[in-house]
């Protein structure tokens, strides 16, 4: 078992954003989390990534308690999150973004020896350049490699977020609404990338609105409503669950 979420709760003053949520993620799985707006999906991911400290409950990563750890520690452990609204480095090119994202990988490969690269830049260069090119190709960004982040389309920005996450060699990749705001072709692109990731064995946790998109990829689905988990299971079952249908579509359709 890779990740265990145990009764995780997050309170903002009087507002309970995430309420006693528990679930597990097994290696190689694709988990889809969905729910209406305000159901706590993004907050849940932020908690898992260490961007918010939990009010109560635990998060266990390979049996190690990482609740409340700092984002950089969690990233180093292998959990990488993308942002719903693409977070970028304004002045830099696509290639530079991906190069910066290689920090963790570089640390893992060279360890303390990376101090050497200060005086021998070639040591890290070839390894890096190959990785960067490969990731750009995987994310279909190779033809915009030298464009500034500010010049990208929304879909390209989102793919860049995914590319940076991939450079970190995640064991668990948390994708926050990767398909939202994307056009048909871009969604299809994203689909290809996700299938490639699946073949490589990366564990994914995706949250999204587009239920159909999730249903296509996820092995297991978790439905949230107002911060609480209301259903879990194979996507088709969860989507047919009357509780879920009520929450999503209203009583009439139940």
């Amino acid at each position: 078992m890779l990740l265990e979420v145990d009764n995780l709760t997050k309170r903002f003053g009087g507002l309970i954003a995430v309420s006693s949520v528990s679930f597990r993620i097994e290696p190689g799985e694709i988990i889809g989390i969905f729910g209406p707006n305000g159901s706590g999906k993004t907050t849940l991911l932020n908690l898992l990534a260490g961007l918010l400290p939990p009010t109560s409950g635990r998060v266990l990563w390979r049996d190690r308690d990482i609740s409340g750890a700092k984002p950089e520690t969690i990233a180093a452990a292998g959990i990488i999150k993308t942002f719903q609204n693409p977070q970028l480095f304004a002045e830099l090119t696509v290639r530079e973004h991906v190069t910066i994202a290689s920090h963790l990988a570089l640390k893992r490969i060279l360890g303390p020896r990376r101090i050497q690269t200060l005086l021998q830049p070639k040591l890290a260069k070839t390894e890096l350049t190959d990785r960067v090119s490969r990731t750009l190709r995987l994310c279909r960004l190779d033809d915009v490699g030298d464009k500034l982040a500010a010049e990208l389309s929304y879909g390209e920005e989102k793919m860049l977020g995914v590319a940076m996450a991939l450079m970190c060699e995640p064991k668990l990749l948390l994708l926050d609404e990767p398909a939202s705001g994307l056009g048909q072709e871009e969604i299809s692109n994203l689909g290809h990338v996700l299938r490639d990731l699946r073949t490589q064995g990366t564990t994914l946790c995706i949250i999204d609105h587009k239920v159909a998109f999730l249903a296509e990829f996820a092995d297991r689905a978790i439905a949230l409503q107002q911060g609480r988990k209301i259903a879990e299971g194979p996507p088709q079952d969860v989507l047919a669950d009357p509780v879920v249908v009520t929450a999503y579509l209203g009583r009439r359709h139940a």
Partner: protein
Amino acid sequence: MTSIGLLVPLYLLPAVTHNEVVLTILIFTFILGIMATGFNIVFGHAGQLTMFHAAAFGIGSYATYLAMVGLKLPFWLALLPAVAVVTALSLLVGWICFQFRLKEFYFAVVTLAFAELARLVVLNWTSLTNGTLGLLVLEKPTVWLPGAGVTRIDGTFAWYWLTLTALLLVACASAILVRSWIGRNLSAIRLNEDLAQTLGINIFRYKLLAFTVSNVLAAFAGALFGFYTNYIEPAYLSVTQSLDAIAMVLLGGIGSILGPIVGAFLLTALPHAIDLTAEVRAATYGAILILAILVMPRGIVGFFRRRPRAS
């Protein structure tokens, strides 16, 4: 590295001109350029506006002199305890600021407060520092040269070559740092701290590193300055001194290697080019700072250089 290469011909300048004024301006340029280069690392690259470097400058000055006189050390060895003191203070102040996640403006204000506290301590610890009267520095750094043996650095020519060499070494080290993964991570912190964190960059450590390096370079500059001008006073730790360095970097160009040096040159040469009284000089400094912010946010070097495409 090519930009640093542009500085190398300066070694030959004393062969061309013996004009004391020109050479003196350049000596001050080189010394202050060291401090400005340090500030560029923490502000230009890591994006943290600090007001502590004047305190480091002054403390570096005082500590080197006191170590030399008190511990009977030659200049270069006396620098070591000074660097140690400044490093310790940087780690302390930096730890406090970054642990509490102070951002931008509040970081500037708190570092200002600490710098002012340092100045008050120096001002009042008269038994050690002689207070407002300052310290008279009669000792000189010594260098071992092949052929001449141990030589005192005395007189314009000697100081010129010494400070130019010091600046070149600092500039090279800065270039190496900035072009490496460390420099990349610092820029990442400047451009988007949250994103940098999720990519595994430990922002606390990197900010602390940049802050400490900047202050250590300022301390080195301070030591050279004190021994060159033969005088060390509490005003070295004043806010004005910090602002001078900021003005130099902003004017010359943030983020480039040459920028801080160009800025240092302009702000040092200006009062000599136009014969100004002290007040008008200060007013001009202020006006330049304002102009730099409003009109040339990338500084002079940035203004002329198109952004190079990275490969």
